């Protein structure tokens, strides 16, 4: 049901999750390093973002209140599959590509690579 309480709960949750992600990063940068590695930090922030995605899908977009057959949900799942293939595939291929060049990922576009100074 599209009730006022659903919107209020969704709003409060969204704000809390946003402030939590911001607060963690801010504390990590200013006072103590609360994340042991970069990977842990990225994982925690991704989890917070995905939880917020689910909160908004349920409480703002009411994806669970759709009557059967659930075509909206089907379209969403298909879109998420394409997104996963597109983003995951891109990162995978580009990482392999830069690895094949014996360089750090993303280092192929540096100034020296594009305008080599040692031409002679």
């Amino acid at each position, binding site marked *: 049901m599209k009730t006022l309480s659903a919107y209020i709960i969704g709003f409060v949750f969204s704000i809390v999750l*946003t402030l939590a992600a911001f607060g963690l990063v801010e504390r990590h940068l200013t006072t103590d390093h609360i994340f042991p590695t970069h990977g842990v930090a*990225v994982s925690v922030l991704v989890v917070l973002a995905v939880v917020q995605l689910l909160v908004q*899908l349920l409480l703002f977009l009411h994806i669970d209140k759709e009557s059967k057959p659930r075509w909206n949900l089907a379209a969403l799942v298909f879109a998420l599959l394409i997104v996963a293939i597109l983003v995951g595939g891109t990162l995978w291929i580009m990482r392999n590509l830069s690895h094949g060049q014996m360089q750090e990922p993303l280092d192929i576009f540096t100034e020296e690579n594009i305008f080599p100074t040692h031409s002679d």
Partner: protein
Amino acid sequence: MTTKEHPSKNSGHVQEDKAVFGFWVYLMSDCVLFAGLFATYAVLQGATFGGAAIHEIVNLPFVLTETIILLTSSFTVGLALLATHHHKKILALLALAVTLILGLTFLVMEVQEFAHLIAEGNGPSRSAFLSSFFTLLGTHGLHVFFGSVWMLVLMTHIVFKGLIQGTTRKLMCMSLFWHFLDIIWIFIFTIVYLFGALAP
């Protein structure tokens, strides 16, 4: 009489559902567009070409304010839809007006951020990283701009025609669009700004 009324009423609902579903399919394809931009950004993030890197241009408190503004506007557009369901015209208009103001405030802040970056010599042509940064954020900002124009048109429609049949469907599509932009922004906030601030 009831048998005569029922099918027409039912087909009206089906029509409405179909329109909203069609719009939903558009949103999902828009999702794929943004996925492409996110992937491009992720690949080019380190390609700074001697220019500013992401952690040098992030202003977290500023971006947090933008995020809170957009989140609040997503909430108020939901209130507008709720008011329309209860046939409260003034309340719906009020909620839409608040949403529009918040949306425009977000846009002004984003333009300020862009102008600041360009003035410092960190425009989109500076490096591959900045090109992808401006493309991703600019595409989202453009969506917010067209969403605001749409909202203005809808408000005019409600002012002059009231909450007539079909208004709910229009508002439903617009609110889906607005919520969708908010979700995209959550990922921009996380992937571009928070990851950027943490970048080694």
